[in-house]
């Protein structure tokens, strides 16, 4: 195996080096097969999905995470990349790497202060999203994950339009159990259908809380109309899973650590893993169907 070239953007700079994260599903010195694809443009080969996820299963995938919440870019903090900067070379903007196989791009990296506000109307935000897709040197990726703000706004319209030349596998829509949240999500499901964006499924977040002292469960956000489960049945959409409230999730996000590594025994971790697996299975299925069609 030839050494990594010194100019390779995936070779983390001294500023980016940090203790390696625990890899999910790997055991010791297990070999890491890479998915091989015919060389095409990175965005043509990437499975574009609109949701956040990290490493999956026993294979190490090349994952790109694109944060298009221009006004509230939280991904740098959640991924432990606050303060990092974007570098530009002849081949484009380099994503900021969490690890060798997980590159991230966010407007948060372009702001010089945590107080800087991006006060832009739709057209300017859309221009930046276009730059993120066109000018960032993502390299060959297996998954492109796009984190969107809530709603069905310009950002959503733009990303669907700009990625229309490539195959978007689908969208994952996140809700809480309350009807107030489900009302918004029904609109988002409707949006996906109108723009012909497949829906991978719905995740019900903040779904119950187990008291650490007495172990009784409370429904802090009660599913007064049946929660995501009922809505998914009514709208013929998959319910990918329910994630319970766990204080460690918020702490891990704030510290930029992997919750799955910090709390491997948490019921929320189990729930996340199941959801990730279902998404992966969906994408595999979708990819196979596409290949048969071609």
């Amino acid at each position, binding site marked *: 195996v030839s050494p990594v070239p010194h100019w390779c953007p995936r070779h983390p700079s001294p500023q980016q080096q940090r203790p390696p994260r625990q890899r999910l599903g790997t055991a010791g010195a297990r070999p890491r097969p890479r998915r091989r694809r015919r060389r095409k443009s990175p965005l043509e080969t990437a499975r574009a999905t609109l949701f956040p996820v990290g490493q999956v299963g026993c294979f190490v995938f090349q994952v790109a995470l694109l944060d298009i919440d*221009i006004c509230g870019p939280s991904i740098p903090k959640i991924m432990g990349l606050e303060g990092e*900067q974007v570098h530009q070379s002849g081949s484009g903007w380099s994503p900021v790497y969490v690890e060798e196989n997980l590159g991230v791009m966010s407007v948060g990296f372009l702001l010089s202060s945590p107080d800087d*506000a*991006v006060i832009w109307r*739709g*057209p300017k935000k859309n221009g930046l999203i276009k730059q993120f897709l066109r000018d960032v040197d993502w390299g060959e990726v297996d998954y492109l994950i796009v984190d969107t703000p809530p709603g069905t*706004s310009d950002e959503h319209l733009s990303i669907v339009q700009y990625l229309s030349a490539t195959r978007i596998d689908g969208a994952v829509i996140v809700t809480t159990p309350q009807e107030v949240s489900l009302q918004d999500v029904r609109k988002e499901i409707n949006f996906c259908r109108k723009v012909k964006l497949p829906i991978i499924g719905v995740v019900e977040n903040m779904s119950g809380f187990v008291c650490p002292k007495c172990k009784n469960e409370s429904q802090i956000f009660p599913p007064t109309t049946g929660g995501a489960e009922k809505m998914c049945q009514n709208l013929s959409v998959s319910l990918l899973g329910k994630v319970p409230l766990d204080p460690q999730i918020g702490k891990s996000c704030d510290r930029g650590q992997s919750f799955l590594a910090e709390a491997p025994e948490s019921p929320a971790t189990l729930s996340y893993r199941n959801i990730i697996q279902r998404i992966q299975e969906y994408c595999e299925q979708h990819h196979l169907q596409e290949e048969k069609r071609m």
Partner: protein
Amino acid sequence: MRKDNEKCIGSEALVGGLSGESAACDWTQHLPVQGGGALGRRKTEAGDAGRQYGGDGRRESQPGQGAAHRAGAVGEGRRWEEHPLHRAGPGAAARREEALIKQFVSDVAWGELDFLIVDTPPGTSDEHISTVEALRPHQLLGAVLVTTPQAVSVGDVRRELTFCRKAGLHILGIVENMSGFVCPHCSECTNIFSKGGGEELAKHAGVPFLGCVPLDPQLSQSLEEGRDFIQEFPKSSAFPALTHIAQQILDTSQRSS
């Protein structure tokens, strides 16, 4: 390792700089002066919204006619590629939002009000810019910013504080929502979303801290059912927090009038 000719991209890479520019679009000049039909009752092309005319000839819509968002909805059997929003391209949605917010402020017959409360989505986006611009001729009391205690949420609200300052919007204070949960079975308090982030932010930013609202299933339930939480659950954990916050806002408004 970085190449020598690699440069660091900062905010100068962002076209047009960071803030202060609103790409104002005279979308409203294309709205018809005359026209029948209540706002939103008929499906419309982009830029064409029907209006209802009151007895005195002023165009007005009544509160409660909540169909405005349906104006220009994609109709049954109509392909997305044919929809005017798709043809108009990205940015069209923002222009429509701006026009709609202006109409909500100027065309709705609110009557005599003591307070107009505007609920905005999170962020510092088109809706916020449009709302501030639409309300500027009126007596804007200020903004209440709501955060959860976590650093991720506080990080967003810091930017919203900057927006308020740049827009010349007085900051009434910060509320820390979802601040702690008391188990109804054993009364153990768990800080599910951490604690104290909102209060620290208020101190750091030099703005008033209005209070902490705990997680309260009764509050969630009453919101779901459209009930009056203040009337029906005076003994719940969120009640004292919410009334205290409301009182501070009232006191501020009385001092400023």
